[in-house]
């Protein structure tokens, strides 16, 4: 069934044709200027909004709006719904699948100025904040009160919380703290008619009806614009310990993961993989050095979070002694200061940046059962036979591989073959073609893979309820035509 579906996809023409939406006119611009102020209706120098950060995906939009509140957002969307103007919603524009940038001339609605309200309830650990807050800034503010954002990702210095919700962001500590579903309590979303929806609330427990706020998670702007988020935040750990292990085989990596789970238990917070090729790529494209002398085939970055430094160090030491004693790891290094820890994380978090500098890049973000996790990388290397370079890094603890392929310049032949090959492999081995990055425009053609007809139909119906004129983020995750 899967092979048949994929062959259908392979031969289908790229159906990104512009929909029947209005083109923005000067009277539209006047309306926007009156609604949010002339300074916040941008028509010049908007390259950073019209393309993604890899500059591989670019649209032809001519207007960016920067509302500062839920109300301003509502009046914009209401107007666009009436006039049938297509809108793409953009937060920090750090997405990896081109979900936040236009395909054609969609109006770009940036949430970057919606950041007035930030309220923490310290005794319950409940935070309400506007969608435009940058994740790192929100985290710094929480630090002053002994709290921490439950998610962390490489893009934290630029990504916004509204975008995190819409993308269903995962990150480097999902292993410990769980996904956004574990933390979201409520949100405010402006739907495709301009209606302000206040979903959920501030309570940890409320079983009075459907948990509608959770529909926003991973909705990729299809149902509405998230303008405010209410979520649980976690106590800031008093002890953070980081270490890197050098490992010679993938099967040893998995054994180390089991050992970490049993010996570190509740303090295990991150378990990340960087493969040997990726580390070499990082060293050659960035001014960053490996923490190990010599190169190895696999590197693991392990972090613990806890409330008692001595207790955690004791556990980490025992774990490390066993890992080295049983020769599961060839070498290991511990971070002894914040600088050393930051350096280790830069190696992992800047891997995507190094890969992007390595050539024309094809990014994959897949979930696989652990026994198949690395075989995908090996088989992709075999298939390419030197036509491109293959890198693998990711959240090994979550079974989430960020497979990246780079070529010198765009290879049209490879482009047509690579995605079907990887996605077919992933689905036939019981995995997901998008673990955390989402569908956006990049994986649009494969969005129905693995979904039943009834689920797809339900999703289209929900889209119709929230966005009856299909003006929100068209040409992407949900189409009303399938």
């Amino acid at each position, binding site marked *: 069934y899967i092979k048949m579906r994929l062959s259908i996809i392979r031969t289908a023409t790229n159906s990104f044709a512009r929909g029947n939406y209005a083109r923005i006119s000067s009277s539209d611009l006047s309306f926007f200027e009156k609604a949010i102020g002339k300074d916040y209706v941008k028509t010049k120098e908007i390259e950073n909004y019209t393309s993604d950060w890899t500059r591989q995906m670019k649209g032809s939009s001519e207007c960016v709006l920067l509302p500062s509140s839920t109300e301003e957002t509502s009046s914009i969307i209401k107007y666009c719904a009436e006039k049938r103007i297509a809108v793409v919603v953009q937060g920090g524009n750090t997405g990896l699948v081109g979900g936040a940038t236009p395909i054609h001339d969609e109006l770009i609605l940036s949430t970057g100025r919606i950041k007035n309200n930030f309220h923490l309830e310290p005794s319950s650990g409940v935070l309400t904040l506007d969608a435009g807050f940058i994740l790192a800034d929100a985290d710094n503010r929480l630090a002053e009160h002994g709290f921490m954002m439950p998610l962390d990702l490489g893009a934290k210095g630029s990504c916004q919380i509204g975008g995190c919700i819409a993308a269903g962001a995962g990150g480097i500590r999902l292993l410990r703290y769980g996904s956004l579903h574990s933390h979201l309590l409520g949100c405010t979303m402006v739907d495709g008619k301009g209606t302000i929806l206040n979903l959920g609330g501030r309570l940890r427990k409320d079983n009075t009806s459907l948990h509608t706020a959770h529909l926003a998670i991973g909705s990729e702007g299809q149902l509405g614009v998230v303008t405010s988020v209410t979520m649980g935040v976690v106590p800031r750990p008093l002890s953070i310990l980081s270490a890197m292990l050098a490992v010679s085989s993938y099967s040893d990596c998995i054994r180390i993961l089991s050992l970490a789970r049993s010996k570190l238990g509740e303090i295990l917070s991150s378990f990340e993989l960087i493969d040997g090729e990726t580390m070499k790529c990082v060293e050659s494209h960035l001014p960053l050095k490996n923490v190990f002398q010599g190169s190895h085939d696999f590197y693991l970055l392990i972090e613990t979070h806890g409330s008692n430094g001595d207790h955690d160090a004791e556990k980490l030491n025992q774990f*490390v002694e066993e890992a080295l004693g049983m020769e599961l*790891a060839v070498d290991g290094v*511990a971070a002894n*200061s*914040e*600088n*050393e820890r930051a350096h280790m994380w830069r190696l992992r978090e800047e891997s995507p940046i190094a890969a992007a500098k390595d050539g024309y890049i094809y990014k994959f973000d897949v979930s696989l059962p652990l026994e198949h996790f690395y075989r995908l990388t090996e088989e992709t290397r075999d298939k390419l036979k030197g036509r491109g370079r293959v890198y693998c890094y990711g959240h090994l603890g979550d079974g989430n591989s960020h497979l990246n392929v780079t070529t010198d310049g765009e290879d049209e032949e490879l482009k047509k073959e690579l995605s079907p090959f990887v996605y077919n492999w992933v689905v036939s081995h019981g995995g997901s073609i998008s673990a955390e990055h989402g569908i956006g425009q990049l994986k649009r053609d494969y969005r129905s893979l693995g979904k039943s007809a009834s689920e797809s139909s339900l999703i289209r119906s929900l889209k119709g309820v929230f966005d009856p004129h299909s003006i929100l983020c068209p040409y992407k995750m949900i189409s009303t035509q399938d």
Partner: protein
Amino acid sequence: MRVLVGVKRVVDYAVKVRVKPDKTGVITEGVQHSINPFDEIALEEAVKLKEKKAATEVVAFSMGGPKCQEVLRTALAKGADKAIHIEVPDADASKLEPLHVARALKKIIENDKFDAVFLGKQAIDDDANQTGSLIAGILDWPQALYASKVEPDGKYLKVTREIDGGLDTIKVSLPAVLSADLRLNEPRYATLPNIMKAKKKPLEKKSAKDLGIDVTPQTKVLEVSEPPVRQAGGFVDDVSALITKLKEKGFIKA
């Protein structure tokens, strides 16, 4: 050549330091501490000399409360062979001054021959930059401070120093005092096998009182306060607006 390396436990360089409400100092409770970055560089240099066979033994030294042992263990994991902890009660630890540390170093050297004392150029908490010079004066040893390059030369050390005017290269005869500046080297990470081996390396503890080291403070901190909040800047649209603003603020004559 036997090298004694001084290491100090300080608030981690990356921590955002905050002043105590009573203004007597900065908050150190519950805050991440680590080895003073310049001391780490000094230690790395000593260990490098040992690896080049120019030094035979590297001994790490720290003076302070019980938690000093953490940085001494790190030093052992990063290549020191032995560690010495001169302990003072926690209450006195925060009032220790460079002169007390210099006196402690003198006591250690009296009982045990060393050919060099390596230190970081200054500690990042008090920025005193005194211990190196004080111990050199007390022992009447030559000093090579702010070293950015060290070359052993028989009974001498050839040291390149970073000074305001550029680079200054000197030759000092051993025994000598050396202080490390930022660009001397890049400290290594403590490998996990070495961290485990470090647990078996000797860590000697002596109390300052038993050694007869006088730790009476000579200075008293009157007040610690935050620097003034930086005023927000403003944007101007063009050069004439800039000129007007500069005139308004009295930076250029009208």
